[in-house]
């Protein structure tokens, strides 16, 4: 293992972002002194070409970790992470993020400047996640940021500058083809006299620049580090851009003969994002707007609209919709570590975080009758305090490590928002909400919410002969949000490790350099499905009615109350091992896990009457996940001039919704065995049962395609083509309904995912290529279904080839269900470490990269990288909202003084 790591450090010696296994005990896990039994969780923060977001770094680098964009395809910003799949339906599945010991979230992590990160650890095994108790069920990402090195003054600067160009767009009929087709079909098409490709109208060459400056100084006794980062990204979509500014300062002071270590840190970031308000409306309009229509307004200031098209609008008018977000995050934290005795440490940690999020939306009257103006402010304050005691002692062949700690976490959320309509002019945007006519009841609101979590944790780990290790942990969590009878939940774990290489029978065997086996079992919880006060019988506004001629707000209960809510519990078992051969130049790791979520929260159906409302949130169902994760790395060539390293991780994952029914407080409760979660939207798809695509079905993985079976196309009486749907239940009629002629025909989540990196160094040149892939899943190509449907022509433009195919049918079926397998070349970077011989410049590196180089796939849509991981209405469905794919070309310079 050592050699292997050195290799990496050697390759990227000049890189500011090199990996070091943190030596100092800075996070709770170290204090608890538990052996991390995850294999290769430390990720290499390599030169990835342009990195806009800390989540980019995780992408493809850890087995069982999928980074995705919530509801959008991967071309949009990454915003969600799944660790070993989905383990809860309503409970929230984003992993817990711990940044330097501070509990945080994915949103905050994505604002950290990637170069500030020293290491990521993805905790997913039983014993590791059990340590995080009621919040660990979805996995934990433990992030260490860089601190002072104590090696005197250092300063470094790095920058990346890149251009982005659209690399693929959908081929729609050109203006000439559009008119010719209308003529041939004998239908009237408006000729606006223009020849537009609206993809070109809404896109531009994107530009991205990142700058990062860090300096550190001081001695071993007392040191500091400060850094500033700036990311500015003008996306390929006109007027849409974002930027992120971060600053960070850390100070470390040793005192009292090094018995006391104090760490103090401040982190702040501001993030501004001018996002697309309605991606489907924008990209649908860009594809389907009549290509003979003008791109801009006419001389009278009017847009040329197609009156009969109600799902699309002039693309430039849609671009004028705004959805802007400003997020400010501030954190300060302090840790004091005191060595009470040679083997006993006492540590105290405190942290305060403040997040402010301002959302603003504006839709002009060109797109929304009366316009739409929205402003919202969401604030969050979080306090965290932790005191822990650690003990570690070795005598003879015995080593004992133990820890005890207690923690209190308090979170307060407040929000205020207002939505208004009735605008007289579009010029104010969202900046003058006073110039609107109407802010009716329900459009303005504010909330206050607080929650607290108290925890006690204990652990003990015993090692014999330095080769057998047994670890026990226990966490007790008390939450304010669960029912009064369930305040405390306990989450134990046990794990064991056997370092076989240290056994006598292998000590003389030089072929094997590492051989370890480990296993563990533990429980963790999920509170995400409950929000504050859910268990209380409280009232809020129920509506507004005239009372004595005055509009009056009435109060009452708004849902069935369940005072017995508790945690979802996830039990995990894992077993794995690693083997290192050829002086660890060949490493192989494998791990199998099985987890089962029980007491799963879901809104179950209850009878009306006697209930007033038809749903009751309760803990009943169960879900399982299992998988195999394999890591492989080899350094086939390792000479003074050439290093070649190939690494690969492969994970197989299988999810199953086991049950959604059971007895609850003497009452049989169940949810529907078949529930639609995703459907096709758009012209001619007016709700109803017929356009559902993705389902949640008990006994199946979450998110399966359940579709009518199309046996082919046939020509109807009008001479147009239709999908021939099989009468699966042979009852003589075709029923598109949920229980009708449908069958399960694939899952949206990949059965296997792959991440692979090839790095090569030749003297001072180096090259790195990253490939990610996903296999075994399907994608519903709703875009092709809609853009090939000639019944929407000429109101909506169609794809090239659609007039020839002559399909006049928009029913969903497995006809447009395609294999989603892909292998994507994420980036290729070529760099040069400039050999500088200067007292001032310590190292200089230049590089150039291409991100999103190419994709190998049989999928016929724009990109197979749609949302395949986050279970929501967009999962597995390519539905007219795909960002045009783009490639980024960038150069980078990094210099250290």
């Amino acid at each position, binding site marked *: 293992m050592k050699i292997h790591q050195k290799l990496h450090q050697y390759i990227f010696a000049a890189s500011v972002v090199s990996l070091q296994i943190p030596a100092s005990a800075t996070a709770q896990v170290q204090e608890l002194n538990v052996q991390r039994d995850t294999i290769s969780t430390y990720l290499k923060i390599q030169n990835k070409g342009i990195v806009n977001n800390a989540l980019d770094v995780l992408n493809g680098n850890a087995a069982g970790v999928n980074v995705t964009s919530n509801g959008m395809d991967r071309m949009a910003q990454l915003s969600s992470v799944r660790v070993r799949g989905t383990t809860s339906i309503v409970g929230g599945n984003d992993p817990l993020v711990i940044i330097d010991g501070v509990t945080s979230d994915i949103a905050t992590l994505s604002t950290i400047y990637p170069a500030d990160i020293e290491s990521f650890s993805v905790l997913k095994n039983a014993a590791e996640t059990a340590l995080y108790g009621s919040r660990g069920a979805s996995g934990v990402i433990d992030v260490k940021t860089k601190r002072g090195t104590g090696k005197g003054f250092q300063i470094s600067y790095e920058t990346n500058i890149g251009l982005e160009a659209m690399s693929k767009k959908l081929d729609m009929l050109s203006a000439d083809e559009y008119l010719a087709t209308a003529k041939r079909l004998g239908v009237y098409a408006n000729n606006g006299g223009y020849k537009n490709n609206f993809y070109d109208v809404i896109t531009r060459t994107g530009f991205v620049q990142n700058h990062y400056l860090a300096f550190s100084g001081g001695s071993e006794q007392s040191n500091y580090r400060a850094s500033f980062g700036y990311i500015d990204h003008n996306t390929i979509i006109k007027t849409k851009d974002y930027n992120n500014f971060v600053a960070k300062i850390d100070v470390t002071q040793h005192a009292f003969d090094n018995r006391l270590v104090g760490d103090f840190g401040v982190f702040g970031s501001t993030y501004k994002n001018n996002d697309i308000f309605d991606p489907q409306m924008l990209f649908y309009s860009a594809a389907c707007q009549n290509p003979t229509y003008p791109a801009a307004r006419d001389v009278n200031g009017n847009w040329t609209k197609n*009156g009969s098209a109600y799902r699309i609008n002039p693309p430039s008018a849609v671009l004028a919709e705004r959805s802007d977000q400003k997020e400010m995050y501030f954190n300060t934290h302090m840790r004091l570590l005191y060595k009470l005795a040679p083997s006993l440490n006492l540590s105290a940690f405190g942290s305060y975080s403040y997040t402010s999020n301002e959302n603003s939306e504006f839709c002009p009257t060109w797109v929304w*009758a009366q316009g739409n103006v929205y402003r919202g402010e969401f604030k969050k304050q979080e306090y965290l305090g932790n005191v822990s005691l650690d003990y570690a002692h070795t005598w003879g062949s015995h080593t004992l490590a133990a820890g005890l700690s207690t923690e209190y976490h308090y979170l307060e959320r407040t929000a205020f928002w207002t939505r208004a309509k009735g605008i007289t002019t579009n010029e104010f945007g969202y900046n003058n909400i006073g110039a609107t006519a109407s802010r009716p009841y329900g459009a303005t609101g504010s909330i206050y919410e607080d929650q607290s979590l108290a925890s006690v944790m204990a652990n003990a780990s015993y090692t014999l002969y330095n080769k057998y290790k047994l670890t026990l942990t226990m966490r007790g969590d008390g939450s304010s949000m669960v029912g009064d009878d369930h305040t405390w939940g306990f989450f134990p774990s046990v794990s064991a490790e056997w370092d076989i290489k240290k056994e006598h029978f292998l000590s003389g065997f030089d072929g094997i350099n590492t051989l370890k086996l480990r296993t563990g079992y533990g429980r963790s919880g999920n509170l995400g499905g409950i929000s504050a006060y859910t268990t209380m019988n*409280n009232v809020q506004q129920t509506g507004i*009615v005239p*009372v004595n001629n005055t509009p009056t707000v009435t109060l009452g209960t708004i849902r069935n109350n369940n005072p017995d809510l508790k945690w979802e519990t996830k039990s995990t078992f894992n077993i794995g091992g690693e083997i290192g051969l050829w002086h660890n130049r060949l490493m192989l790791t494998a791990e199998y896990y099985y987890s089962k979520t029980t007491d799963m929260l879901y809104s179950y159906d209850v009878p009306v009457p006697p209930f007033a409302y038809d749903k009751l949130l309760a803990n009943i169902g169960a879900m399982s996940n299992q998988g195999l994760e394999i890591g492989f790395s080899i350094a086939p060539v390792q000479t003074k001039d050439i290093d070649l390293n190939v690494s690969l991780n492969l994970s197989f994952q299988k999810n199953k919704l086991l049950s959604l029914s059971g007895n609850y407080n003497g009452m049989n409760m169940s949810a529907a065995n078949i529930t639609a979660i995703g459907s096709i939207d758009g012209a001619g798809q*007016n709700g109803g049962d017929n356009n559902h695509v993705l389902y949640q079905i008990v006994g199946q993985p979450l998110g399966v395609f359940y579709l009518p079976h199309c046996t082919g196309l046939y020509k109807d009486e009008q001479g147009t083509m239709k999908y021939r749907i099989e009468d699966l239940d042979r009852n003589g009629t075709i029923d598109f309904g949920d229980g009708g002629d449908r069958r399960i025909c694939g899952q949206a989540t990949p059965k296997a995912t792959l991440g692979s990196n090839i790095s090569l160094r030749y003297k001072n040149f180096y090259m790195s290529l990253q490939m990610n892939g996903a296999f075994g899943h399907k994608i519903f190509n709703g875009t092709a279904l809609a853009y090939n449907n000639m019944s929407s022509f000429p109101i909506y433009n169609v794809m090239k080839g659609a007039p020839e195919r002559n399909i006049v049918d928009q029913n969903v079926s497995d006809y447009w269900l395609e294999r989603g397998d892909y292998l994507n070349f994420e980036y290729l970077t070529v760099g040069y470490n400039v050999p500088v011989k200067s007292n001032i410049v310590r190292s200089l590196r230049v590089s150039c990269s291409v991100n999103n180089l190419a994709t190998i796939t049989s999928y016929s849509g724009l990109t197979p990288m749609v949302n395949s991981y986050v279970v929501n209405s967009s999962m597995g469905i390519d539905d007219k909202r795909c960002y045009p794919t783009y490639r980024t070309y960038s150069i980078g310079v990094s210099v250290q003084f």
Partner: protein
Amino acid sequence: MKHKFFALSVLALSLSLTSCLDETPKDQIPEQNIYDSANNLYVNAVASLYNYIGAHEEGEGLQGTCRGIYDYNTLTTDEAIMPIRGGNWYDGGLWQNMYNHTWTATDTDLYNVWKYLYKVIVLSTKSLETIDQYKALLTDRQRDEYKAEVRAVRAMFYYYAMDMFGRIPILESTAQKTADIRQSERSEVFSYIVNELQTVAPLLPLEHSNLQGNYYGRVTRPVAWFLLAKLALNAEVYTDNNWTDASRPDGKAILFNVDGTQKNAWQTCVHYCDLIATAGYSLENDYASNFAVHNENSKENIFTIPLDKMLYLNEFHYLFRSRHYAHGGAYGGASENGTCATLHTMAVNGYGTASPDTRLELNFYTGRVEVDGKYVTLDDGTPLQYQPLAVEQNLTASKYIETAGARMKKYEVDRTAYSDGRMPDNDIVLYRYADVLLMKAEAKVRNGESGDEQLNAVRSRAGMPSLAATLANILDERLLELVWEGWRRQDMIRFGTYCEPYDIHTPSDADKKRYTIVFPIPEKARELNPNLAQNPGY
């Protein structure tokens, strides 16, 4: 020793920390805090129920939004239809199943109707319990009046539930266990509702609910009388527990106790119609004024859903749903190009004849549409022209795929409406006096008397010549006068035409067995409460 220490620590910490885990919400309050005065008890236990008369969500509200009570009582009849227009309005066969009477117990929209009706029934029952619990805040008279109003609202929702589902459960209290909730025979539910309304009517204010003022939107005494008249008029249907056979009780033999006097169903209906007249209602000279943007001063409207885009949430989707896209666009909003009038409705209105009914023009768009002095045009520049006689169930292959069918007019267009026309200021008319006159005419005819006076009062207001008050004429008059008002299914069932061939409807197998005159108990409701028996036939 370690474990002991651990156990003790856990105990000590648990005790000290648990107190930090109490919740103290600030944006919601405990339920008892909202019942702190007589006024707040009225607002939160009584007036709060009026939130559910109208709606802004599909499947809810007595009228206004789609896929709810109104659609199941309108698009299942000879009055209106939602044809398939190419890719639009197929919706899994929902609308075809309505028109063809081929709905099933698993239809989610039907279950939504059930849930909506019973939500209000449960919340009303809870309000009664709340009023009793906090009666110390009230005078005896206040308590009686509050409870009377709640019981009247609840009776109204039982009435709709019984009308649609036949055998339904009567809830005793909100604490009742699911296992104890069972259906009653339709006649028992009917008697219960009549009794409730008769009991509480004297305690309700004798005021016009449609007028803006202290009683705006409330269930007042005339509203209860109107319901009693409807119940009496349909008593033959509602007291028939075996509705699949061809026979039903004779209205003359169904006896009501009206203020101590025994009256048969028809006399009872006439009695309550007359009471309504004494409360000061009369026909407006101008039919259309009842549906104007500002129709709050109508002396004809009895019960309405208050709409005000600036103040309330209630929406009205039917104009929006019916008009062609270009037609809605011409008003600066949008439209969905869906529902239209049937061929039967056009025929009864005399469309295409030399002397159509005057209300044809008031209730329907039948040809070209003029907005701001210009014809509304389609994308190709030609004028939009509705084709009232081109209606088919599936228009996909029709030349008039988008334009077939006369469209809903009835309500004055509110050019300032929000939400693409879904939020106008016209109050939705639920009950009005013209219906009272037609009810009285019918009851008299059915009782062997003449109903000419009442029938022709309605006709002459519309500028139409007199007709003899035969049952057939009355059924047609109800279509002419009350079209788009949500009564047609009930009328057809009462007149026995619902299961017969009409318009382009051929009776389904279920129609032939006559069980379609009630809807099935939704399968989901039965799954959650296995006590509930399915209606015969389903």
